[in-house]
């Protein structure tokens, strides 16, 4: 079953663009990455899912139900971590978390304390005394304490130190194993690459590609570096080669196509060194945006 299903979801703020014709499916049990630069429409899409804002056209279904009409019911099963967390100042962390827990139709007390222990969160402190990173931790505990079926993360790692990030990723993987579907929006591609099964790439409000992360890397460009004496880079200018550069006798380029074409070309040369690797997500990403 699709956990999230959008059909030509479009949002304009007055005349300025939010997102245009976003159609995507997130299947049960997936960790779905949603990547794009600032202002591409990631947060807009998420806010539409949560019916904080309403679409200009199109619709979004979550758990197969319209996300506006059944908003409150759907949100029983959603955990949301916004990119910037704001809570009522003057409340203690524990009071806030218990307040949040009181809205869900299950007892969240045990999970609340487990998560707080895991994230090393001091429950006795007041919200206004917390640093940015600690507020984020409150957000993580608050978003996960009711063991949601769908977890929506909007740039979740900002403000967390590397150790905490690691803990957080492990937590997300565990939640995923438990059966939760994850919608992970980020512009930090390394973390998406580590965590996600599939990604959607959004650019200027439009989805430009949705791919399995492995196919995205495999079927796409290879990064090739050749160090060989007397090899003229002009000989390498065949179909599928791009970004060709020569530095200190090493020629590097991106290649998309049959790898044998390259090996035949350079087979006769005296090669000192040769590396062929998949592009990391960052390089693919940059390629999409150039």
């Amino acid at each position, binding site marked *: 079953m699709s956990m999230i299903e959008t059909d030509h979801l479009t949002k304009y703020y007055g005349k300025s663009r939010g997102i245009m014709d976003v159609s995507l499916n997130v299947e049960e049990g997936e960790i779905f990455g949603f990547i794009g630069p600032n202002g591409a429409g990631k947060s807009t899409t998420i806010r539409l899912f949560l019916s904080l804002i*309403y679409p200009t056209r199109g619709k979004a279904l979550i758990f197969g139900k319209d996300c506006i009409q059944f908003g409150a019911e759907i*949100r029983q099963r959603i955990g949301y971590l916004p990119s910037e967390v704001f809570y009522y100042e003057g409340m203690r962390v524990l009071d806030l978390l218990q307040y*949040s827990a009181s809205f869900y139709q299950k007892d969240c007390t045990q999970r609340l304390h487990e998560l707080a222990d895991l994230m090393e969160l001091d429950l006795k402190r007041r919200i206004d005394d917390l640093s940015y990173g600690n507020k984020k931790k409150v957000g993580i505990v608050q978003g996960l304490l009711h063991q949601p079926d769908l977890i929506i993360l909007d740039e979740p790692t900002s403000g967390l130190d590397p150790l905490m990030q690691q803990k957080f990723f492990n937590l997300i993987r565990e939640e995923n194993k438990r059966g939760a579907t994850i919608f992970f929006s980020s512009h930090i591609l390394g973390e998406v690459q580590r965590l996600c099964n599939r990604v959607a790439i959004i650019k200027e409000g439009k989805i430009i590609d949705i791919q399995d992360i492995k196919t995205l890397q495999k079927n796409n460009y290879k990064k090739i570096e050749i160090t060989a004496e007397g090899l003229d880079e002009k000989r390498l200018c065949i179909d599928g080669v791009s970004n060709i550069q020569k530095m200190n006798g090493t020629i590097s380029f991106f290649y998309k196509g049959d790898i044998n074409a390259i090996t035949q070309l350079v087979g006769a040369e005296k090669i000192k060194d040769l590396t062929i690797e998949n592009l990391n997500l960052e390089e693919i990403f940059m390629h999409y945006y150039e």
Partner: protein
Amino acid sequence: MNIFFHELRANRKSLLIWCGIVILFNLVGFSKYSAFYENPELLSVLDGMPPALLSALDMNAFNLTTVTGFFGVMVIYFNLILSIAAVMWGSDIISKEERDKTVEFSLTLPITRASLMTAKIAAVIMNCIVLLLVTWGSTLIFAQRYQPDSKFYHFVSLTMLTLLLLQMIFMALGIFLGCVMKKHKQSSSMAVSILLVSYFISIITGLSKDLDFLKYITPFNYFDPAALLHESKLEPIFIVLSLVLIVVSITGAYLSYSKRDLYI
């Protein structure tokens, strides 16, 4: 229910401050009254003052040497204090979530926007009622030393009823502005401005008979304390008008808030 209690807790400090203001006002007011109390000389002083000034201060209609008459003059200030509190609470209660950027928390909880509004409005009504009861109680306590008669108690009770209506009108107006206005940061200053303008209109209305039609515009004129004292009843047309204002504002607020984008 949890939202209701949360809002009561969050608004506790503000409620305490307003209660303090009302009690202080009563304290000062009634101690000033000791100068008027059974003192006919002051009446002649008042007779020498310009009629327009007396009318603006609503001192014409009352015999200031009786505690009932004196309270009649204080009513206009209570009108102002209690409605300012109501309009500020009303405009703040919904829009503060957007102002403090907590909408991404409160409205991603599994509740509908309408149920959130209902709980919040209930909390404001509760606050208004507590403030009204404090006003009522402190008035009765401070008036004790002047041996008020049964007419006084009756007048005070009627006045409290009109104060409640006034609170509800301005609370509803505040809520409406807080829900509708795009610049939510300005909703409470806008609400207070509207309140003050209608207060001044109500003063102007009292100055000339030709301006009598203005009394339909400003809620401060709906229940004239002097008429209330002498006739002991509220005019039905203004009760209806008040209820219409309240219902229209609240309905408008619900419709607008459930349909619009939240500002994040």
